[in-house]
């Protein structure tokens, strides 16, 4: 019965000192913002690393066994392409090449690495509409499409002359893909242009993108491929490869772990900030809380008041943090070209972390409540 009045009492205590309340919200928002930004950076890491893979039009991908992650460059003999094509259920097998070359910013003369992706322009391998629409333009040797989300450091991003690996290239269009943690831009060229630029061994390919016949069973084809192909390569369904790379980036890279530690650090900072707020509040009203105890209010009531204060603060701090987090990550995405952003799951996670953070701080502050001695009042 009495506990029902605790929430409104908590609100009255919080709202009484507006200045302190705003400072408290600011502190908690700051801690939550730290967590949101770390999650946003982690999203950028995971999404950017998988974006090219997701945009490939393939049922199965054959590539070097040593290649991990997918973006790592490790070629295999072109022969594997034909071996794969011979397997029952495989309708087509298209090669893809990847490399890093130097792009010259024609405005300031600086050189920057750019990922150059080569493919056979007669065969569609991308799910990106702009690439598909401009694919035939790449048949002409020396032409390229540039990622419109490449960083401004490359100079002018658009149609016109460019210089890659000290060779002249004509950019004939753009496509949207986005940067990642390795490079700040992408270029798509035909296989012929790719070999012109790289002077690489034409008997090697980065990977083979397989499409299956409509009646083929994917897992059966995968089994057949593994039995036919030599052990230097492996075949993955696209979903398997996405899952494998996701696991690699999530658990196998220091940066992902560092970003998660950053979330933990934000949580710890939040607990400390929230604890200080609640502890100070209890300390400032020690005699008043002790008077409540003397009147017959139990420890449970006062604990409830402190915990409700903690939850209210967690909610008050949450919304500004989400708005600011969204804005900052949006700005980061705009400046860097990285797909930095927050998912609904991230926001929900931080909402729960926020409640947990403030509850933990509240529980720590309750130690002071337990020590309240109404006998000291007389």
């Amino acid at each position, binding site marked *: 019965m*009495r506990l029902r009045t605790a929430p409104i009492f908590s609100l009255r205590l919080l709202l*009484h000192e507006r200045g302190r309340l705003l400072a408290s919200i600011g502190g908690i928002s700051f801690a939550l913002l730290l967590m949101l930004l770390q999650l946003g950076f982690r999203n950028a890491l995971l999404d950017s690393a998988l974006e090219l893979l997701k945009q490939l039009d393939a049922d199965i991908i054959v590539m070097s066994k040593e290649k991990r992650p997918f973006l790592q460059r490790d070629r295999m003999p072109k022969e594997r392409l034909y071996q794969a094509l011979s397997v029952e259920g495989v309708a087509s097998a298209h090669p893809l090449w990847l490399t890093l070359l130097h792009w010259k910013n024609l405005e300031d003369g600086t050189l920057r690495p750019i990922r150059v992706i080569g493919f056979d322009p007669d065969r569609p391998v991308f799910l990106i509409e702009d690439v598909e629409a401009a694919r035939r333009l790449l048949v002409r040797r020396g032409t390229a499409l540039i990622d419109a989300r490449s960083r401004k450091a490359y100079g002018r991003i658009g149609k016109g002359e460019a210089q890659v690996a000290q060779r002249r290239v004509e950019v004939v269009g753009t496509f949207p893909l986005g940067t990642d943690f390795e490079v700040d831009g992408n270029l798509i060229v035909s296989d012929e242009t790719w070999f012109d630029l790289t002077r690489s061994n034409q008997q090697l390919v980065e990977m083979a993108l397989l499409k299956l016949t409509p009646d083929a069973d994917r897992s059966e084809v995968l089994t057949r491929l593994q039995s036919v192909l030599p052990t230097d390569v492996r075949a993955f369904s696209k979903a398997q490869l996405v899952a494998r790379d996701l696991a690699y980036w999530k658990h196998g890279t220091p940066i992902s772990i560092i970003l998660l530690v950053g979330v933990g650090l934000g949580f710890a900072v939040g607990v400390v900030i929230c604890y200080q707020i609640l502890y100070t509040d209890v300390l400032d009203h020690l005699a*008043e809380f002790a*008077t409540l105890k003397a009147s*017959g209010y139990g420890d449970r009531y006062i604990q409830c008041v402190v915990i409700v204060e903690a939850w209210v603060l967690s909610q008050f701090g949450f919304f500004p943090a989400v708005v600011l987090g969204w804005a900052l990550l949006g700005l980061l995405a705009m400046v860097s070209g990285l797909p930095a952003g927050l998912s609904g799951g991230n926001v929900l996670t931080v909402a729960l972390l926020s409640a947990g953070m403030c509850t933990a701080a509240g529980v720590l502050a309750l130690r002071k409540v337990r020590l309240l001695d109404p006998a000291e*009042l*007389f």
Partner: protein
Amino acid sequence: MSIPQPPSSRVPNARGESAIRVSGLDYAFGTGEARKQVLFGIDLELAPREFAIMTGPSGSGKTTLLSLVGALRRPQGEGLWALGRDLAELHGRALEAFRTQLGFIFQLHNLFPALTAFQSVQMAADLRDDIPGDKDRRISELLGELGLGERLHYKPEKLSGGQRQRVAIARALVHRPLLLLADEPTAALDADNTQIVLQLFRRLAHEEGTTILMVTQDARVFETADRLINLVDGRIDSDSAA
């Protein structure tokens, strides 16, 4: 006076019990070499409806005795009963429930700065479900009687020291306590308001059945009480009708 008459069952001596019974009570602070005894074999009995003033020099043990009777401090042995309960046996919920039967007035008002006068008194009223009639009306009338009718919705920062102390007094009285324990309740009040409060105490004792034990050094208020107890060096020096 707006406080309604209590049912006779409120009075703890319905079976002939004392409101307060202290028998051979000792109390000491600290242990070992730091041990300092402040109460020595106190014997005291207060009947229901009795209004007693306890006085004595500073450090005589008045406040310690008051806090023991109010179950704010745990007795160090047997010999302390209030409202028919052995205070040495009270713990947890039973202790909380016992305290709701009491009213405390401390030297400092201890009002939450966030609460208005009305809300502060309401917090105390919310502790009891058995307050007859409209609680809000009772709070307003009690504050009005203490001269705060125009200040119901003022927070402590907008009240004078005396007004704050009167809010604290209303907080202690709103639930019609069976036992009122007050420590220098009129210290912050002017002469007129002191008289208002003392008249209210007398009416509470004689019409409501509240037993009052009030600590004060203000000799001007001694005659208001039924009984005057003088405590010196932890012992009752005198105990007589006021």
